[in-house]
């Protein structure tokens, strides 16, 4: 018995159409044509994902994961891209393996996490999922791309939570990594340490609290050591990761331009193709990471509400599919995909409106990019698959 989730299909299609319009307005005919070529490919992929037996996907999880990781390593060794190694050029196509990695990692995580009924804070439950998520996250991190690397953390956290892991345990699981990142500066590490101490003392007793604090102290101490071993330019790069408001190249300038562009859209927007900021060329990468600024300028607040509404609707249907399926693997797929798309949408828009530091995260469906569109379509197709066959 198949029931197609029409709401989800419509939401995804509307987002894709909005994406095409935005790319045309921001990037011009060249990018429009390319995106229009990708669209049917992505749609075909979505249909295939919808029709595919989930058992096959379950069986293919490991090979998929392995192939994608190899591509990621290949990119590190031979990739090209402006400033950093993110792209992989194969003839006329340039592929961004980190996008495909998101998909493959969620699939294999779904497989291994759904093996257990409930996940506790034990090595037996956690070693496999943490390793499976950490490997691609670290590979992406050295690309270097911190924000994409955090996508995997978001997916892992959401999926573990869905499998019954307590939020406190989830926090403890991530403390070493948080402590390491916070440890680059005492100003971030001390508040983190105090919060952790209070929280664990209140919620889990003295012994566990001391253990958690000891572990996070070790990782916190490790980061200055690592930092001191790095060369000057590497340290600058890390500093830009951890403190992007440290602004030697005027990234803040881009953020300001973006906020002015968005704000100048006011309630109703300047109208399609009537944005001025992007026409004057103040916005960098305006058809990719900055696509939302361009859209918000032309569509205004009302248009933004519609756009955000479509995202909420899409993600809600993802969660709903997880809620109603009886297949643990399928449910985990939906949760993982929701986490990834939700993280990207929130981080991208958040940075453009000045809530978060500027990083290189695309907005699903709106940012130009074939790999991204293909992966997003596959995610939608797989969620439709789960929603249609809940057993």
């Amino acid at each position, binding site marked *: 018995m198949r029931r197609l989730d029409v709401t989800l299909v419509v939401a995804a299609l509307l987002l894709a159409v909005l994406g095409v319009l935005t790319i045309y307005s921001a990037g011009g005919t060249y990018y429009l044509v390319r995106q229009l070529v990708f669209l049917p490919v992505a749609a075909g992929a979505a249909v295939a994902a919808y029709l595919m037996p989930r058992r096959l996907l379950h069986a293919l999880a490991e090979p998929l994961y392995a192939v994608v990781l190899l591509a990621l390593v290949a990119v590190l060794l031979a990739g090209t891209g402006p400033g950093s190694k993110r792209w992989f050029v194969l003839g006329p196509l340039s592929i961004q393996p980190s996008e495909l990695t998101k998909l493959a990692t969620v699939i294999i995580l779904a497989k291994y996490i759904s093996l257990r009924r409930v996940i506790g804070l034990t090595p037996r439950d956690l070693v496999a999922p943490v390793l499976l998520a950490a490997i691609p996250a670290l590979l992406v991190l050295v690309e270097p791309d911190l924000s994409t690397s955090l996508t995997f953390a978001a997916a892992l956290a*959401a999926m573990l*939570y*869905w499998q*019954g892991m307590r939020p406190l345990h989830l926090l403890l699981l991530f403390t070493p990594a948080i402590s390491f990142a916070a440890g680059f500066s005492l100003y971030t590490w001390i508040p983190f340490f105090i919060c952790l101490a209070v929280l664990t003392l209140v919620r889990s007793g003295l012994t566990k609290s001391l253990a958690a604090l000891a572990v996070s102290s070790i990782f916190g101490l490790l980061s200055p050591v690592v930092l001191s071993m790095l060369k000057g*330019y590497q340290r*600058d790069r890390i500093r830009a990761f951890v403190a992007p408001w440290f*602004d*030697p*190249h*005027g990234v*803040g*300038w881009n953020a*300001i331009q973006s*906020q*002015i*562009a*968005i*704000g*100048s*859209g*006011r*309630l109703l927007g300047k109208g399609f193709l009537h944005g*001025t*900021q992007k026409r*004057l*060329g*103040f916005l*960098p990468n305006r058809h990719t990471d900055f696509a939302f600024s361009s859209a*918000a*300028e032309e569509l*205004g*607040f009302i248009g*933004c*509400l519609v756009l*955000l509404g479509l*995202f*909420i609707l899409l*993600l*809600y249907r993802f*969660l*709903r599919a*997880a*809620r109603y399926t009886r297949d643990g693997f399928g449910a985990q797929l939906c*949760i993982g995909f*929701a986490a990834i798309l*939700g993280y990207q949408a*929130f981080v991208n*828009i*958040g940075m453009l*409106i*000045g*809530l978060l530091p500027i990083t290189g995260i695309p907005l699903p469906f709106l940012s130009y990019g074939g790999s991204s569109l293909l992966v997003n379509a596959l995610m939608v197709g797989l969620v439709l698959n789960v929603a249609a066959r809940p057993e």
Partner: protein
Amino acid sequence: MERRFNRLTQVLWILFAALVLRLGQLQIVQGARNSYLSDRNRIRRIVLPAPRGRILDRGGTIIADSRPSFACTVVPTELGDSAASLLARLLDMPEAELAQRIKPVAMYASPVKVKRDLSAVEVARIEESNFRLPGVQLHIDPVRSYPAGVEYCHLVGHMAEVGDEDLKRDSSLRRLDFIGRSGVEAQYERLLRGRDGFEYVEVDARGQGIRALPEKRPDPAVPGKDLRLTVDGRLQRLAWDLTADYERAAVVGLDVRTGAVLCLVSRPGYDPNIFMGPIGSPTWDSLVSNPSKPFFNRAITSGYPPGSTMKPVVALAGLHQGAITPESRFQPCAGSFRYGNRTFKCWSTHGSTDLPEALAVSCNVYFYQLGLRIGLDSLTSYARQIGMGKTTGIDIPGERPDNVPTRDWLDSRYGKGRWGAGSLLNFAIGQGEVLATPLQMASIYGAIANDGVACIPHVLSSVDSAGRLTYTVPVRTTRLPMNRADLDAVKTGLNRVVAYGTGTAARLSEITIAGKTGTAQNPPRPDHAWFVGYAPAEAPEVVFAVLVENAGHGGSVSAPIASKLIRAYFFPEEPAEPDTDTTGAAATTFPAETSTTDGQPR
């Protein structure tokens, strides 16, 4: 399941609600203002240049400072083609060069520097034509200046405009920035430079600033640190003046107890201020084409045969390895020494001498025989251990290790085994293939004076930040293989050199000086004159190495220079004696703007 579904849905709502609230703030609450700002791009990112740290001598006299100047900046998105050609004409600049400056950043609306250090005429021209030059502005832009003058050129160094390489290597640099290229300016570039800040300002339709943008806090510039050097400005000036009669010379003075550089001079020099002006001026061309290479720091990058100043090193090697005692005598000197079928000369006839006496009269025959007894491998190994053939580690870039002719080196130079004992004999009297810089010789004699403890030479004394002392350079020492009894014998010899030997020209009535003269053969051109000496001989404080190229005997030319520097060090209240040649010195006293810092005790 239900609960977790609800929780995740709530998280979704909360995150998106935050986005909607912020969007509302930007588009509704601040919508009118953002719309106004976007209407005609009305904000500018202005660079606030970090003032470069000053460089002071040990007394606080300013050696390098910054003076204000005007730079012309352009907002590339606003400058039209006609305005561009007008601007190029006003600035006496080829249009292609202007376009080249703007091109890499053409898509941005932040100002780029197109010309720095404008003349008063250029400033006036731009101001007059302001209304025809949209996007063109004048900014205050500090420029380096060197009030103390030419004697510091090699020590403090100079700055020059960044090149493509620098821009690639260091992303915080921008075009038309200046960075340290030599000397202290290059060595401590990071400390001196500080970090530029910036602010965002709102501008009117003519591109003139109205006020700071309230939405974005300015990021203030972090000023560079002030550097205080160990150098004594008086000695530096005196060393410069005392070598005025010679085309090429170098002087190094060190505090033997700390390694602090008291003076470091190389002739000929250049005016570091010329790098601030346009390259290609007549002065510039004459400097570049000067065969004496004024940019070359002879004190640390030029190796000379040490001549007889090498003999104390050979003596110490012999004593250290037990080849001789201070009382050892060899075949008497009859004016020459026959080895194989070659004759090696001495400069006089000295008869039979012991070691101190051989040093005092600088007897070559004694040292030929000593060298043979020690052997090449032992001698080169000892010379290397006490610092020859190695950089001293001074904090000025470009120091050269220079050469000790080891067996391997001779093999590679002449072919395996195709060299004879002549190399060893020449080495033993400091001629031929052995080379040392004046700094190395000063450092080695400093270690002898300091009873075998070598202090690594350094020119930085302390770092000041906003008038407060933040860092003091520690003294770094190494123990050399020289024992007390051996040193006493060598020091006795060095005392006698000045008392009645080859270096009597250095003698002072008030202070006992010990040292060694040297005459480095430089065929076919005239010899180089060396003197290296320390004082007071009983409890040494300072060491000076003086080298004058092609000036003949060290005893007559270099020894008096060292002696005058030592006198000036110990009697600072006396007027420094710039020899009989007072004309040059009077014209080069410090300018009036020279002043000490805040006058606090340090």
